[in-house]
């Protein structure tokens, strides 16, 4: 087992809050009729936040930097943990989206003023995750201690984004963003792919910035 695998194992077995696993169920918000599914992505991030809180109370950072790993691996471990939870949640979002799409001709799913779980919505989920990684995790590593301000900041950005995402598909000409039919698939696929690229870039840039910030901190 290499150090990366060991660090992920450490995160899952020692640092993680059980709420991080529980809030993966936020992905099931897709199945609630006339409810903004993207709020589920926010709850997934809230679950990860609880692990950061749990880790802080457990002196996890000090434990990690004293292990025979490079000091900045403590940051890498947290980003990888977030990525694991987000990947599981994204897979669950995909599964619920397929189920919801299969049921889209039947009440209560046949009519929805809010975003339907489709390719574009899955892309938006990745944008919410990107905001968490780049705003919350990066903000946390300014101090490796203060959680409140970066999480409030992330919450503001996330809900602003969710609001915009729910408005955009009502703009004339962009209705197909909210479709579950075959028309408009290229547009929705483009949104998903662009979001995936944003997620990847924000993950690696965020981790790099966080490592630099972390290296400057005196314990």
């Amino acid at each position: 087992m290499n150090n990366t695998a060991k660090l992920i194992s450490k995160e899952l077995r020692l640092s993680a809050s059980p709420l991080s696993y529980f809030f993966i169920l936020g992905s099931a918000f897709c199945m609630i009729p006339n409810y903004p599914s993207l709020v589920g992505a926010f709850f997934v991030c809230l679950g990860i936040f609880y692990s950061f809180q749990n880790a802080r109370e457990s002196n996890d950072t000090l434990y990690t930097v004293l292990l025979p790993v490079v000091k900045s691996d403590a940051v890498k471990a947290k980003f990888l943990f977030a990525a694991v939870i987000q990947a599981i949640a994204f897979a669950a979002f995909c599964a619920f989206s397929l189920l919801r799409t299969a049921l889209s001709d039947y009440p209560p799913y046949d009519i929805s003023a809010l975003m339907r779980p489709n390719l574009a919505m899955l892309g938006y989920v990745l944008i919410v995750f990107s905001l968490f990684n780049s705003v919350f995790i990066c903000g946390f590593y300014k101090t490796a201690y203060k959680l409140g301000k970066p999480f409030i900041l992330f919450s503001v950005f996330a809900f602003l984004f969710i609001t915009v995402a729910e408005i955009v598909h009502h703009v004339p000409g962009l209705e197909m963003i909210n479709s579950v039919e075959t028309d408009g698939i290229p547009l929705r696929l483009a949104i998903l792919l662009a979001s995936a690229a944003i997620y990847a870039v924000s993950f690696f840039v965020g981790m790099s910035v966080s490592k630099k910030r972390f290296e400057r901190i005196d314990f």
Partner: protein
Amino acid sequence: MTQTVNKNVPALEIAGLCKEYPKFKLKSVSFSVNEGEICGFVGRNGAGKSTTLKSLLGLVHPSAGSVRFFGLDVKEHENRIKQAIGFSGGAVDYYKRKKIKDIVSVTKTFYETWDDGRYKDLLEKFELDEEKTPSELSEGMKVKLNLALALSHRARLLILDEPTSGLDPFSRAEILDLFRDLAKENVAILFSTHIISDLEKCADRIVFIRKGEIVAAEEKRDFISRFTGEENESLEDIIVRLERKADDHE
């Protein structure tokens, strides 16, 4: 790492370590600890002991100076050096609600030289129960747990920040006895303390720090012969007198 330990160089060598805070300065701290040596790092509260120890592994960033473990620079060989040392801020104070066996099962995967047999022996010797959580242990038992973790990966150097603070006299005596046994196995120990009687009992070398500046760093017998003022003056009397004299000069 154990294979790379160079017997001809000190286990730890600190040269010209400086650190500046708005109200405190660490002024060119230099000293070394040899293998099999117990080095007591003494000074009053706020003298710079913890800052120095934290600087060794980059937990605080010194503005100048160098730190070498077994002849290796800590910045270049961080991972390898950590395989060969045990560092503790005293008692285990992480994952207080996790069972010891769970903490250990994760910790040991990181160490190439982890020895399960030795770990079991140490659990027995220290009467530690793996089913307990750190929150259920007394302060003395927490220190012992930290030592058990460090010794199970065959650490060649232990760096301990005030390991005997807050312990009852019996637990302190046990820990100091253990230090002596470890030194016989050629383990180097650097421990900070403001309990001078601990140094009298087990230190081979004394590093005395005052207001961020090293006053003396030498073998205990040399320290005593250099600074003894009156006949039968104890080490505690000497250090307290040196502190007071310095206070009077300011």
